[in-house]
């Protein structure tokens, strides 16, 4: 049983996307400073910070390539198949997971929440590139700001 403030936050995508927007703004602003300090050093602070915030809230798996705002503020890595682009064809009639019948499908939740997100909601229709598995366990925030998370996109985009 989840404690109510966590459950309530999880189901407030409009609030979470606003938080994301503010954080993203500040991180981008801080980028030159981070660069001077050294991304490695910043990551040492950021990784524990990400673990204590994103783990209880989203079930973060530390894939290092956070795409929460494009997936209805619901972590796609909690899908047992790690699908990044939407639900598989195995979703049960009650909206639960093919693999774990007791778990609601991550993507059913993601879609419902994306509809309540005025800023980033439509991004659920974007195609997410394959993961860079080397980034597992690293800081998604630092990867995003430093551009490490976008290494593959040159070939990927049409």
């Amino acid at each position, binding site marked *: 049983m989840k404690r109510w403030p966590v459950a309530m936050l999880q189901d407030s995508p409009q609030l979470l996307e606003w938080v994301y927007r503010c954080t993203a703004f500040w991180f981008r602003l801080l980028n030159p400073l981070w660069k001077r300090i050294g991304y490695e050093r910043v990551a040492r602070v950021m990784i524990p910070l990400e673990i204590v915030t994103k783990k209880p809230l989203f079930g973060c798996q530390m894939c290092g390539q956070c795409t929460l705002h494009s997936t209805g503020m619901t972590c796609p890595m909690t899908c*047992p*198949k*790690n*699908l*990044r*682009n*939407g*639900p*598989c*064809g*195995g*979703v*049960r*009639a009650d*909206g639960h997971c*093919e*693999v774990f019948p007791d778990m609601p*499908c991550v*993507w*059913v939740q993601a*879609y*419902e929440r994306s509809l309540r997100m005025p800023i980033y909601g439509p991004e659920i*229709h974007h*195609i*997410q*590139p*394959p*993961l860079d*598995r080397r980034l597992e366990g690293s800081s998604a925030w630092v990867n995003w700001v430093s551009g490490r998370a976008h290494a*593959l996109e*040159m*070939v*990927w985009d049409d």
Partner: protein
Amino acid sequence: MTEGKLVAGSRLERVLRSGRFAVTAELNPPDSADPEAVYERALVLAEVCDAINVTDAASARVHMSSIAACALLVRAGYEPVLQITCRDRNRIALQGDLLGAAALGIRNVLCLTGDDVGAGDQPQAKRVFDLDSIQLLRMARIMREKGVFLSGRRLDVAPKFFLGAAANPFVPPYEWRPYRLAKKVAAGAEFIQTQLCFDVPRLRAFMAKVCDIGLHERVFILVGVGPLKSVKTAEYMRRRVPGIHIPDEIVERLRKAGSARGQREEGKRICVEIIQQVKDIPGVAGVHVMAYAQEELVAEVIEEAGLLPRPHRPTPPSAVGVKGPKDNQKLAPYVP
């Protein structure tokens, strides 16, 4: 509909682009190292369909690999659709397999995520899922169009595939399913084969939305259909096969049919009726007939639905550059 330049020149592609109603059928590779077993199953199907889908360890149960079974079909002059899933292979293996498949003369590929390992008889296995179906599609498209691997390294000869993907309009989130299809089309899908349809009203609603957003003009949609052998099969599929939705009315109809023989006939009748209803839904370009381990039944269904004869244009093995052993022609004669 989606006329235009041929990308792979496969028979399936030609049938679809010419605007004819296409019929594909599913073949489950045997639990055998004997090529005869593949030919036997294909023989029944080849006469009644435009292309044969070869499953890739469906329900996570091991059978002969789909690439090998497809290669056998190509050698014998049949037209296979290679089903390839993300469950068992990472991106390195997938890219290698795509090149190998093209070299073996396979021209149609259906990119799937794959059933979870837990659905099969070896749930101890590691689930890979390095890519998902949409990423696999886009990767195959990049290899074809840009002639490069995912790393950007150049290919000497790009694989020319007619690219397909699956859709399941019969499970939640229903409203998103048409948009998910749109995503697959954006990723590179040129044809779609849906999960088994037993719920025509649901399909109708899905197709209405698909036409509404103009997808029927950009992709060929083949609706999955299949005969149910008995009430027991229906119950089993409902319980154990992921993503299958069978309404109660259908099971009730089967139950009323009584004897095993009666149920088999009723199952066939239901399937024929569904095909006839589906045929008239705007945006439907064909049907994909699936019947696990009852290939003869598939032939009967296609015949009774009035979908014969097929506009056959056999591709002789030599035309696709595959030199098979001579006696393969004897093993599985192509019947035009």
